[in-house]
């Protein structure tokens, strides 16, 4: 601990960095552990717009609050983020198939 670098040349600072990363990871993990049941009905369109970052700023903040608080909203958020990846994959696939054809 007293030496600035360990035998692999990794500095103490890097080690501290890892701890801070873990803190962030823990904070994100906390979200699932503290999610509550109930809350307002999920408005799926708003959640998707939140993921795409095109929601009215006031609503955006409110939807974000519901996502970190309520299980149902959080589940919808997770699905929306994965759907977005699927959409991008679809475009990429169509694009690469066309390239092969050409």
């Amino acid at each position, binding site marked *: 601990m007293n030496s600035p670098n360990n035998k692999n040349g990794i500095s103490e600072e890097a080690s501290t*960095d890892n701890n*801070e*990363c873990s803190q*962030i*990871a823990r*904070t*994100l*993990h*906390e*979200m*699932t552990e*503290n999610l509550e049941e109930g*809350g*307002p009905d999920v408005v*799926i*369109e708003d959640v*998707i*717009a*939140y*993921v*795409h*970052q*095109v*929601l*009215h700023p*006031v*609503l955006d*903040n*409110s*939807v*974000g*609050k*519901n*996502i*970190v*608080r309520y299980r149902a909203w*959080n589940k919808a*958020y*997770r699905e929306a*983020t*994965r*759907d*977005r*990846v*699927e*959409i*991008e*994959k*679809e*475009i990429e696939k*169509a*694009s690469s*198939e*066309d*390239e092969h054809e*050409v």
Partner: protein
Amino acid sequence: MCDNQSDQDEFDVESFRDHVQGFIMQSVKNWEIAKDLTQETFFAFWKSSEAETIQGDRRTFLFSIACKQVKAYWRKKKTIPVSNEILDSYQSPNVEYSREEQLANIQHLLNLLREHFTHEDVALMSMKYLDQMTFEKIAVELNCVVSTASDRHQRILNQLRVLAKENPPPDFETGSPL
């Protein structure tokens, strides 16, 4: 000119209608809206064909129009005025101060993720910490090798740390906005 016309004849765009509608549906989650946007997509596609603006890659072109339609749809939604009734429905119940602070910090992190990372990065973090998936499963979802998923996760955490330092959570006591 003749070759181009011949290519267009061979390309059966209508065979992609269901595919395009399904693609749009993934985002808007409403069949009626998806149908309308599909119609708009094909209209724009044919309009461009008539103008002879398409040079090869017609399927990609079709999907890029669909993507633009979806984006335009969400952009339009953004301009819809927010009624007090809707805002009231989002009001959270009263909870203890510390819990509110904790939620505000988590939301702050989530906002940083969303604003500064690609949607694939956000999906990776969502799968890792919210769905609590293993890197093996995440790699399958993202169509990459396990080490890539793991390295990417570490990179995101490192970048997020820097961002979190540069953008500290809101001062809860002064009530500054998120």
